[in-house]
């Protein structure tokens, strides 16, 4: 069992929300923050993951809170970010990332050997008859996109977490299975 190294600090002080950040040159960034919401929020059969979306630039800062997503949102976004970092010409090879339920799209507009130009767009109200989009154009580095592709998995904790207890148990079970002869 992991002991709290700071026993005077309450779990509330230590906790920070799962937050993903995709920064760009010129002070632009897209942030995503995940939370669990009760079933009534999206009228689902049980509690579900919801996401806050933030667009940041030096002269504005907008948050859209508690957005639902289509299935496999984090997986799809991770794949898109990795391809944007990895493809020679992602503006030609990569389809626009889109999540209708969240009202978010991200398109690759340009690329060089080091940088990739993105256009991120979020709808102020995805259910509105005439949706009002907020867009953010910015350049980021391929290095940043590559690290973002794994960092985004913090949003649903789908990164390959190794639990020390699980490792011990696995070793013990392997030992148990060994033939004593």
């Amino acid at each position, binding site marked *: 069992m992991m002991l709290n190294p700071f026993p005077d600090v309450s779990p509330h002080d230590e906790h*920070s929300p799962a*937050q993903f950040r995709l*920064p760009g*040159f*010129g*002070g632009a*960034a897209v942030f995503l923050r995940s939370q669990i919401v009760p079933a009534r929020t999206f009228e689902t059969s049980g509690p579900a993951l919801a996401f806050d979306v933030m667009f940041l630039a030096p002269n504005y800062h907008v948050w859209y809170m508690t957005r639902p997503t289509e299935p496999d949102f984090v997986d799809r976004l991770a794949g898109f970010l990795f391809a944007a970092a990895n493809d020679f010409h992602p503006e030609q090879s990569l389809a626009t990332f889109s999540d209708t339920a969240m009202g978010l799209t991200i398109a690759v507009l340009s690329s060089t050997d080091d940088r990739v130009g993105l256009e991120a767009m979020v709808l102020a109200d995805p259910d509105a008859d005439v949706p009002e989009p907020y867009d953010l154009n910015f350049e980021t*580095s391929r290095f940043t996109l590559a*690290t973002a592709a794994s960092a985004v998995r913090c949003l649903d904790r789908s990164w390959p977490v190794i639990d020390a207890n699980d490792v011990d148990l696995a070793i013990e079970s392997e030992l148990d299975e060994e033939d004593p002869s």
Partner: protein
Amino acid sequence: MTHFYNRLPFPPDSRMTGIWSNSWVDDPMGDEVAIGHLISFPDNQDAGLESDFLSSHMPFNVGGFSGVYPDGSPWMFILQKAPADVSKRLMREEDPYWLMRDSLQRAMRFNHEARIVDELTWTRGKLEFAYALEGINTDDIADWTITDLIRGLLTECCYVELSDIVDRHATGCAFPGIEHDCAADVFTDVFARWGVGLLRRPEPQDNYVGAWYSIEDLQAMPRPELEATAKECGIRVRCRNSKKHRSRKRLIALIIKAPKKQNESE
């Protein structure tokens, strides 16, 4: 070694990978102060991008440089300047550096993994002293703004002699006699040339021993001890053809640049 590198806690083999200077800095309004912060980033972040990102959220940012530690993790050093009385006038804060620290803290909320490693502050007097330590007559920089003084110290990081920058400031050309696309501004000229990899670290010189005496130690020395140290380094304490003593600043500057052989004979 440069003024900034002498004062910042860089482990050996840290490398500068980028440098910038903002052209849209406000003109001076009265006395100004300057502050610099060394920021470290986790090793999965991009030094160039994060420096640009953070500085874009800091309106008093004058310039800075970024790089990597020997283990590859990135850092940046960012410089800001502002009128000395603004914190008190607008926010009733006695500390003249308050608004720039506040600006940094606001920007760092958008990168919660960035950490402040060190902070340096300057008044105009301290900046002029930095130039005096390089043997520069402060009368030659009397009409420079705080921004100019900071940019001059930044050019030092590009392996350019500060005295050359001061000498050539009025002409606007940092590299006379060398074919280049002159920006008509010595600082811009240096940053542009460094950016395309045409300025390199000079070969180590055997005859400089700046590291043997730290500037802080020399500044703290009583006058007699400072004079004794100067004499040991073969430095004349009295001005040539005069009975007047050299100033403390000049003595410290000469000791910092004293020939190694004379120090080795101590």
